[in-house]
């Protein structure tokens, strides 16, 4: 123990202390110079102090209960010691103990010896005991050479002090972090309209290419106007509402080229009295994002190419095979028409595939109209029954409507068909039910819209499958049964509609696809038709028809009749013009009504050509000759219907409605018969 060492420097130190002590003693002691006899007489327990008393020989003579509570080792000299491990019974061992546990820099500690090996000591030490308890130990020499020790628990104070110290450090660290941040940060006074800048970090002054002095104390509009001149309104909105927000700005600077700046504004403090802005150069991130998007696109295209290459090879093989066969057939003098037809058919399949590729690779820009989803879904029902077969029961629960959405009927049809085909395949041969539901409902963000739900009682899916179903070319169907494009296409279409798609599935129980589509803010476009048409031609309403008729009066009558059905009518005075009219028209054309005999181009050839470009258009032939016998029915396209003039309004409507509802071709001839008979 260093208190025993008698080295020269230490002696010098003690000598110096002795002088100080004598100078200090009169000032120090009176306050603590307690009448020990009095204390002992009145019982030290009555005092709210932890006291230990050593006599002038250094022996511990008294310790009160509080002190013993802190240090149970304290025992008066000669007291009977039960299980004393290391009893502290004299000043020397006490000092040793205190110094062993001290965490103090001994700034106020003075030890020295008087004659005959007696200690006189004055110190103030902070010690730490187990359980992280901290005490101040004060040793106060008394007049008669004895020593009074007082112990005070300072654990709470110490901890608070530590916190304060840490906080002080913490603030320094924070300030350091803010200064060295790569993002520019400024703090402005938000209580006044000028929003004076109170603080800027180095990154900000670098980003704006201005010194801190040019910024601090000035209005923060200095920053907004320099870097966000176009986004003024956006910034004002955030500032006025005292909210938070992010603003992007694309700057083309002379010095550093094109950069993307992001500014995040945060209002904070009491009553939003502070405005903090984070400014960052996000050019690299943007570029990386773009590259990533490009890569993903390439990946998707890679997947597509891989999937389609197989099909293409098959097609090429067919073409090659039949071409060779045709070659040898010619040598043998045989008819090669059937083989050429096979080749043509194969090329059609090929161009179908490339179209699919193009549709997937690019967003086909189709103008979305305001349509009633309920009506469209009800229309699709007719297509679904033959598709689903007899073993599957289709249960329709469609809102009465109208629920207007921004879409095309084509998109909705595609979504419904794709999902229903999947549902059908999930039920295999066992049959089951498909519930097709359209209900008006808000989404989770409380936006108005509707849910289109398709639920089946099929085999369901596992989690792993569910995670991948929207990936292109992911399919669980057998090779050749599915392209794996269906659901990814549905996903793309729903995105186009700004909708959401969710899937819920339980293996062996079934799957439910829910698609939420936002409601259209616009009213549906009104076609020019009389009110009487409203309650009549629901099916025909909004459909587009091209009428080709060389008799101007008749054309006018047809136009007004069809407009009365609520149809959108395009007129043409001859076949060529009909082709021109459809060429100029970007939308879907549902019907072609054509006269059989016209100059330039007759109805039959017109229908043939029309079918080339608009294969889904239904054709109705009109003729002034009442007898069909004059025209060979073989020449008529499969889905064409013949009507004799004069055309009766009601007949025309019934026939067109039935064609549109997709009555089978066998049924059509019956319709033709009925129509002709009625007219006659």
């Amino acid at each position, binding site marked *: 123990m260093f208190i025993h060492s008698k080295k020269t420097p230490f002696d010098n130190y003690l000598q110096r202390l002795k002088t100080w002590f004598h100078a200090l003693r009169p000032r120090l002691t009176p306050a603590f110079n307690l009448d020990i006899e009095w204390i002992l007489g009145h019982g030290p327990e009555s005092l709210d102090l932890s006291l230990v008393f050593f006599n002038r020989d250094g022996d511990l003579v008294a310790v009160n209960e509080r002190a013993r509570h802190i240090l149970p080792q304290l025992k008066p000299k000669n007291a009977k010691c039960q299980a004393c491990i290391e009893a502290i019974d004299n000043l020397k061992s006490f000092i040793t103990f205190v110094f062993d546990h001290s965490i103090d820099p001994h700034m106020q500690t003075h030890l020295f010896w008087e004659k005959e090996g007696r200690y006189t000591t004055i110190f103030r030490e902070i010690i730490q005991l187990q359980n992280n308890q901290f005490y101040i130990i004060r040793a106060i020499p008394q007049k008669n050479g004895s020593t009074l020790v007082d112990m005070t628990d300072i654990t709470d104070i110490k901890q608070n002090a530590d916190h304060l110290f840490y906080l002080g450090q913490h603030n320094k660290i924070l300030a350091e972090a803010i200064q060295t941040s790569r993002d520019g940060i400024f703090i402005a006074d938000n209580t006044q309209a000028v929003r004076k800048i109170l603080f800027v970090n180095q990154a900000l002054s670098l980003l704006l290419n201005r010194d801190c002095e040019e910024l601090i104390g000035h209005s923060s509009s200095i920053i907004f106007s320099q870097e966000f001149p176009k986004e003024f309104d956006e910034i004002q909105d955030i500032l006025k509402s005292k909210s938070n927000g992010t603003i992007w700005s694309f700057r083309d600077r002379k010095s550093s080229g094109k950069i993307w700046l992001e500014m995040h504004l945060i209002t904070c403090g009491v009553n939003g009295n502070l405005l903090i802005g984070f400014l960052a150069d996000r050019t690299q991130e943007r570029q990386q994002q773009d590259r990533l998007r490009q890569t993903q696109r390439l990946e998707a295209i890679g997947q597509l190419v891989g999937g389609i290459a197989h099909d293409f090879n098959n097609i090429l093989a067919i073409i090659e095979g039949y071409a060779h066969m045709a070659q040898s057939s010619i040598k043998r003098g045989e008819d090669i028409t059937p083989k050429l037809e096979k080749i043509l058919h194969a090329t059609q399949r090929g161009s179908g595939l490339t179209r699919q590729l193009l549709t997937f690779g690019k967003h086909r820009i189709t103008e979305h109209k305001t349509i009633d989803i309920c009506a469209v879904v009800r229309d699709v029902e007719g297509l679904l029954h033959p598709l689903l077969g007899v073993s599957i029961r289709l249960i329709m629960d469609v809102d009465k409507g109208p629920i207007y959405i921004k879409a095309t009927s084509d998109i909705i049809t595609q979504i419904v068909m794709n999902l229903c085909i999947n549902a059908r395949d999930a039920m295999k041969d066992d049959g089951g039910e498909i519930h097709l539901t359209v209900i008006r409902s808000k989404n989770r963000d409380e936006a108005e819209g509707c849910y289109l739900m398709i639920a089946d009682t099929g085999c369901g899916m596992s989690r792993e499958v569910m995670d991948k179903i929207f990936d292109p070319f992911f399919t669980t169907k057998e090779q050749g049964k599915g392209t794996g494009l269906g659901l990814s296409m549905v996903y793309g279409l729903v995105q186009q509609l700004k909708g959401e798609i969710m899937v819920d599935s339980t293996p062996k129980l079934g799957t439910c696809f829910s698609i939420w589509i936002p409601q259209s803010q616009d009213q549906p476009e009104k076609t020019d038709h009389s009110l009487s048409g409203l309650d009549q031609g629901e099916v025909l309403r909004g459909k587009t028809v091209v009428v080709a008729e060389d008799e101007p009066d008749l054309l006018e009558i047809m136009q007004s009749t069809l407009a009365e059905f609520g149809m959108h009518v395009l007129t043409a005075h001859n076949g060529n013009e009909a082709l*021109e009219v459809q060429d100029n028209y970007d939308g879907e054309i549902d019907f072609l009504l054509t006269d059989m005999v016209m*100059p330039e181009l007759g109805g039959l050839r017109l229908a043939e050509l029309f079918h080339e470009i608009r294969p889904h258009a239904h054709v109705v032939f009109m003729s002034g000759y009442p007898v069909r016998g004059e025209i060979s029915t073989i020449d008529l396209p499969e889905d064409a219907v013949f009507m004799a003039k004069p055309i009766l309004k009601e007949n025309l409507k019934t026939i067109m409605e039935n064609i549109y509802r997709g009555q089978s071709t066998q049924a059509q001839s019956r319709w033709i018969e009925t129509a002709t008979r009625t007219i006659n």
Partner: protein
Amino acid sequence: MTKANDGIKHLKVLIVDDQLEVRSMLRGMLSELGISQIFEAADGKEAMQFTDNAMDMIDVVICDWNMPKMTGIELLRQMRSVYPDVPFLMVTGRSDMDSVTQAKASGVTAYIRKPFSPAHLEIKLRVIKSKIDGARVA
């Protein structure tokens, strides 16, 4: 097939394409439509020379978009600066909306996407014929 083609079979057509195979294919298709007066040019320059000398011999120009030296659009602009009304059918391998919009904006009378069948070509020629007739009536 031919009996219905009365309207277009008298059209005089100039084919502009840098590829011989495409020119001969087009010639084949046109003759099948009953069109007999067919002329060819291998590039824009040739086409301009031809029209400068014999514009009255041409009713329709069928031109490929994608050609070296002078693109179809450039030829269209040059030709229109001299003959503002010449019917111009643009053949394009591209089918994206941008190209279509560009083609329309530069004033083509009609455009046709590759690959096309004789029927498609017939439709386009009929569309052009209808436009010519319409203009004449007006």
